[in-house]
């Protein structure tokens, strides 16, 4: 097995008396999709936030590309190539889709202490931003404000922004949340096409999507990893069925 891109050991995070994430171990190999599933309140988003740096872990280590990053801030980790998307759509609503993605492009072009020439007239920025929008299929909507497009399109924009950062690892928090069947299918297709160039840690409730995309699945229950393995193993794990998938979801998947 190749060296993991992202390696998490003993990661814990609590809020007061609530242990949201407890002793989580996780390895993400390059060019693979690792899905995290689990019931609501299992700590999936908290886990993702501790990885992205929005929250600092109480203990444990996070090694990304052989660098210990667990004490680095949110922005710093993003600069190193860990890009996250949000469960609740988080884009800059008054700006156009192109301007949104342009900000992401700007962030990989080095510092932004450039005070004079207009950012939106910079052809490097515009071309790369347009590429990212084309990739997710939003190129025809580029000049609309983000507030004017559909929820599904905003989800795609989220992904385009993450992609425009040219990340080494994508942390995706329910990219299909609130999407229709057709939009979800498109998103699954898109994510699987991106696998060659990006490693992904994926939180998702859509089991069809998870089982068709993931190379590895971990089940998070009450902040702990209850099981981890290939999709087939997880599907047949009685422990997992009892804890999370026992309601018949699994049989359909």
């Amino acid at each position, binding site marked *: 097995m190749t060296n993991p891109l992202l390696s998490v050991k003993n990661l814990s995070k609590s809020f007061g008396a609530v242990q949201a994430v407890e002793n989580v171990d996780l390895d993400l190999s390059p060019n693979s999709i690792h899905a995290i599933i689990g019931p609501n309140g299992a700590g999936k988003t908290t886990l993702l936030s501790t990885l*992205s740096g*929005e929250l600092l872990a109480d203990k444990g280590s996070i090694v990304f590309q052989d660098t210990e990053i667990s004490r680095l*801030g*949110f*922005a*710093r980790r*993003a*600069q190193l190539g860990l*890009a*996250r998307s*949000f469960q609740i759509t*988080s*884009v*800059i*609503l*008054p*700006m156009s889709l192109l*301007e949104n993605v*342009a*900000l*992401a492009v*700007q*962030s*990989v072009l080095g510092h*932004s*202490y*450039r*005070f*004079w*020439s*207009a*950012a*939106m007239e*910079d052809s490097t920025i515009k071309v790369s931003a347009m590429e990212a929008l084309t990739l997710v299929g939003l190129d025809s909507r580029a000049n609309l404000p983000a507030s004017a497009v559909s929820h599904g399109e905003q989800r795609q924009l989220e992904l385009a*922004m993450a992609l425009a*950062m040219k990340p080494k690892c994508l942390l995706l928090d329910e990219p299909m949340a609130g999407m229709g069947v057709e939009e979800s299918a498109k998103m699954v297709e898109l994510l699987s096409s991106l696998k060659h160039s990006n490693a992904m840690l994926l939180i998702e409730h859509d089991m069809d999507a998870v089982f068709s995309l993931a190379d590895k699945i971990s089940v998070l229950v009450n902040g702990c990893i209850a099981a981890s393995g290939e999709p087939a193993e997880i599907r047949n794990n009685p422990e997992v069925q009892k804890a999370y998938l026992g309601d018949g979801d699994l049989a359909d998947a």
Partner: protein
Amino acid sequence: MTALFRSTAARIYAVLITLLLMAPFLVEWFNQPFYLDLLSRILILSIAAVSLNLIMGYGGMVSLGHAAYLGIGAYCVGIPAYYGIYGGWAQLGLTILCSAAFALLTGALSLRTKGVYFIMITMAFSQMVFFTFVSMEEYGGDDGLVIDLRSEFPGMLNLENGTTLYYTILFVLLLCMYLVHKVVNSRFGRVIVGTKYNERRMQALGFETYRYRLVCYIISGVMCGIAGFLLGNFTSFISPEMMDWTRSGELIFMIVMGGTATPFGPLLGATVFIFLEEWLSAITIYWHLIFGILLILLVLFAKGGLHGLISRIGSRND
């Protein structure tokens, strides 16, 4: 530039700027020298409002302590003058240095807070400066300080001449408006504007928003400090009163009235504010009441302030 003057709104602004450029002649023509003073004051406050608009309008950092920089700039003229130092470049350099240092120190702390806390802490810092100057007996304390000679720029400008001073102020204002326009459209400005709407997203993109905001805060502070430098020269009398928190509130009024996050909003707002103040206070001592009602009406019915109003009229005619 031709594209700029295509819309009706742009033409209105072009006329406004032309009038400002011609003002000294018009004032002489109608023999109303008082109005040149009024205009000078308006333009100085416009510079202050333009600088506040950068952090408040474009950056979402609502500071209720911006008038402190007016005071700092004014005292950077007054205190050297008190010791007989009238060199304009030295005073200007001191102004830039002091306002940048004050912005760096107070910004570094204030920008760790958000919303109402930010408003309160910026106000607290400006009140600290206010009371510091009130307590400095040497420089007149509460009573203020008279500046006997304006800043000297030998061989370049003679600010003792009212018209020269007026054009200097106008030039600085136009320069500041142009600078802010360039900055908000630059990469730096995009980060500032993005952070106003969604700081978390900007951090997720890898921007250390705190540092960008701090730099923006310093730029704005220095710009307002320069407005204070001009104010000190203009009034030839400075007192702590000019940095009272109510002055900061007036700057916010002007911006909201004129149109937040618009290039001409601060100038429009300051112009209407001062003229209204001037006329209404001549009619009745209860002018604050009328003023308040007008402001409420404007906020309720003219979305985007005066700039919004002008743009709407403009787009109807185009």
